[in-house]
C-alpha cells in the first residue's frame, strides 16, 4: 500500500521565521511528488517534482525532491500571516494512463504564522 507521511503535523511560528516542512513516501512506481496549499476550501497547487536534486522556487517558497531518501522538503522563508494554511504533500505513481490525478496524500502540516 502506498504511503505518504508528513512532519511536523502542526507548526506555530512568528512572522519572519523560516520553516521547513517534510514529506516522505513509500510507493510503488513513483512518478511525481506534489505540494498543495489549502487555506479554507480548495487546495491550490504549489509545485510538482519529478527529478531528484532540482529545486523549484516560487517567491519565498521552494521545494526539492530526494529520490534516494524518498523524501521532499518545502521551505518557506520570511513567513507571513498569509502563509497560514494546511500544506499537503501528495505522490503520483505510474499505474497506467488512468493514474494521473490518483494521488496519495499525506496527513498535511498545519502551519500557523502569528504576527
Amino acid at each position: 500500500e502506498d504511503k505518504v507521511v508528513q512532519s511536523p503535523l502542526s507548526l506555530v511560528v512568528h512572522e519572519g521565521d523560516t520553516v521547513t516542512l517534510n514529506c516522505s513516501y513509500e510507493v510503488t512506481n513513483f512518478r511525481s511528488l506534489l505540494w498543495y496549499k489549502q487555506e479554507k476550501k480548495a487546495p491550490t497547487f504549489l509545485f510538482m517534482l519529478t527529478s531528484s536534486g532540482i529545486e523549484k522556487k516560487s517567491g519565498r517558497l521552494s521545494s526539492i525532491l530526494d529520490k534516494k531518501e524518498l523524501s521532499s522538503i518545502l521551505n518557506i522563508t520570511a513567513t507571513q500571516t498569509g502563509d497560514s494554511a494546511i500544506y499537503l504533500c501528495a505522490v503520483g505513481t505510474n499505474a497506467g494512463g488512468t493514474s494521473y490525478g490518483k494521488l496519495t496524500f499525506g496527513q498535511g502540516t498545519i502551519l500557523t504564522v502569528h504576527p
Partner: protein
Amino acid sequence: SQTIHQWPATLVQPVGSPLSLECTVEGTSNPNLYWYRQAAGRGLQLLFYSVGIGQISSEVPQNLSASRPQDRQFILSSKKLLLSDSGFYLCACHPSRANTGELFFGEGSRLTVL
C-alpha cells in the same frame, strides 16, 4: 483553464437519509474526475475516480457510490448516511490532455451527519 463547481457547499443530514453531491467541470472535455474526502482538516483520501461517462472505479469500500452521467458531471451519492460519512468532500479534475499529475480542485462540500 478549467473551473470546478461543487454543490451544495454545506449540508447537514440525519443518519439514514440519502445524499447527493454534485460536481461539474467547465473549460475542458473528457477529464479524469475524482472524489476525495478530507476528515478533520487533514489529508485527502481518494474515494472514486472516473475516466469517462459511466466508468467508475472505487478505491475504498464504503457506504457511498459515484456516477458520471455526463462527460463533465460527477455525482457522489448514498442511500443511507452513516455518522462516519461526515467530512469535507472535494471533487477534482485532471484534464485528459495534460501530461502532468497536477489536480484541480473544487471548493468542496462540507457534510455533517447527525
